[in-house]
């Protein structure tokens, strides 16, 4: 860590580590930095202040206008009834939309279940698989780079394209899977993406194809950052490989672990593209994000209902987001 922090401009350096160190320094020497801060601000000329204002203002404006304002609008619209045509048609509706989606909207609860299932699948199968691959490839084994490239290739693909590629694999009559199972052309042949009993599993396997590679690459970087002397110390103390990993190496990768937890949760909430490509998120593939869009696009635009669903999605997403922000920025706020 300390070795890399000394030369932050090189591509393989670890700027966050450096940042953390700087932070620690500044925390122990508060008066000095405070003096420096005041001095710096005083030295800004009027022109510099204007330049700085533009540099901050422009991105902030974009961010507020196209991300945060729409988010607030979503919350507001969820308490209204609107067909999306004329702004003057917006009628207040109280909590009607929420009552509707929770009581009279059949896909809502299946969608919640599928989102939870998706998260569980990624968390219990895809993420551990990625970690396992990373640990195996972190050893000095022959062909490690080739394996990495193979596992990493799906990460480069969009989930939409992954949906198409797996469709070719899963098709009832032309897909490879049914040929390999020997059921192709027989009545037992399963339409893996079409059958509502199995399609969520088929879709989650396709998503795992991408997620595991993503997790692998992050953990490979994390494993390289673990101080080798930790492992040595553990093996001198008589720990075997498994003990060393779970007691020493894995806890030492805490920053990466946090990112992985957040990514896994966010990815399971965002699993929209693949189900939309398969069947627009219907017939066994209902997900919250897909339901939002079904209510916004198409003939019967029900913006209020769509927005209520979006707010449910927002509230759930805020859990990992806030968790991540506290972990990441908590220390800085103190300082």
């Amino acid at each position, binding site marked *: 860590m300390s070795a890399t922090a000394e030369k932050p401009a090189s591509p393989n*350096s670890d700027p966050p580590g450096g*940042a953390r160190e700087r932070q620690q320094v500044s925390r122990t020497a508060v008066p000095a930095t405070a003096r420096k801060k005041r001095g710096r601000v005083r030295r800004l000329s009027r022109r510099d202040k204007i*330049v700085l204002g533009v540099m901050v203002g*422009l991105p902030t404006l974009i961010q507020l206008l196209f991300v945060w304002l729409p988010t607030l609008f979503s919350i507001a619209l969820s308490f209204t009834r609107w067909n999306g045509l004329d702004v003057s048609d917006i009628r207040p509706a109280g909590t009607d939309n929420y009552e509707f989606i929770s009581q009279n909207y059949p896909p809502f609860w299946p969608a919640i279940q599928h989102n939870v299932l998706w998260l569980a699948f990624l968390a219990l199968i895809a993420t551990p698989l990625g970690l396992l691959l990373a640990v195996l490839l972190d050893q000095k084994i022959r062909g490690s780079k080739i394996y990495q490239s193979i596992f990493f290739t799906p990460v*480069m693909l969009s989930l939409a394209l992954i949906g198409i590629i797996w469709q070719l694999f899963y098709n009832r009559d*032309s897909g*490879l899977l049914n040929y390999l199972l020997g059921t192709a052309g027989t009545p037992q042949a399963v339409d893996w993406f079409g059958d509502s009993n199995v399609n969520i599993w088929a879709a989650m396997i396709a998503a795992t194809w991408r997620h595991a590679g993503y997790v692998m690459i992050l953990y490979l970087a994390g494993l390289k950052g673990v101080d080798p002397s930790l492992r040595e110390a553990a093996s001198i103390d008589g720990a075997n490989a498994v003990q060393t990993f779970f007691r020493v190496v894995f806890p030492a990768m805490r920053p990466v672990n946090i990112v992985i937890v957040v990514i896994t949760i966010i990815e399971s909430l965002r699993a929209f593209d693949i189900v*939309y490509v398969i069947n627009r998120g219907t017939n066994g593939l209902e997900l919250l994000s897909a339901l*939002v869009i079904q209510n916004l696009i198409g003939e019967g635009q029900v913006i209020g209902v769509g927005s209520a669903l979006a707010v449910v*999605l927002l509230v759930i997403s805020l859990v990992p987001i806030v968790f991540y922000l506290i972990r990441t920025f908590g220390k800085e706020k103190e300082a």
Partner: protein
Amino acid sequence: MSTIARTRPVQTGKPGKSGKRHYGTHIFLIAVAALWLVPLVWSMYTALRPKADTDKYGYFSFGGSFGFNNFVQAWTQGGFSKYFLNAVLITVPAVVFTLLFASMMAFAVSRVSWKFNVTLLIMFTAGNLLPPQVLAAPLFEMFKHVSLPYWFSDSGNLLNTYIAVILADTAFQIGFCTFVLSNYMKALPSDLTEAALVDGAGIWRQYWSIILPLCRPALAALGTLEVIFIYNDFFWPLLFIQSGDRLPITTAINNLQGQFLSDYNLIAAGAMITLIPTLIIYLVLQRQFVAGLTLGSSKG
């Protein structure tokens, strides 16, 4: 660095024993790698065969000829040349704007101390983590209610234009890039800009001539990553663009199944064409891409 170089040989320096131990690992990795490649190889195999042959022999067969006819047909008649151009027209400006705005913001929050920099950074980071569907409806309505002259946009508003997609992509990606770049800039020694200040360099010169060139590795990594992210973006064009012939390639493949009916050979060829640019970037800029992904994750 030197400590790593010194300790690694000790760890793996047990000849014979470690070699044996890896057999099981190799068997497992080869099995998983084979599973990993199956969908891709199958798509490629299907794409290379004419439909007539697969109809005659079945999809799971080795008979018939192989060639790139499906690719040619998808490119010319399937409209893939057009979709690809659309993707370039969206991706290039979106990536440029994202990196420009993100680097300005990152500079301001990391190199100049003022009251709200952590607050703003939190806002930017959180924005990037939201599911895009949360803001879909209001953004759609906002763009619909921006009146534009018809010579500029045939919808009379921002819908069905590349600008809408570029704006949404940029706004969504700025957060992540700001976060990564601000961490990177924080790690640069503060003497750099202090010295420039003494020399009378203004804020813009500090940003453009001193800090930005030093961030080249981070910018290269993020640029590669963002090209892939935005090229792969399926959702914003789906939401904003109604005319099929204006869709970028990633969103257009959604219409393949309807367009080519059950000509899976042609669908497979279309999928492979979509994959080629990312594969090229992957092969050429793999290091940058991986660096970009891990830059964002190593912050604790």
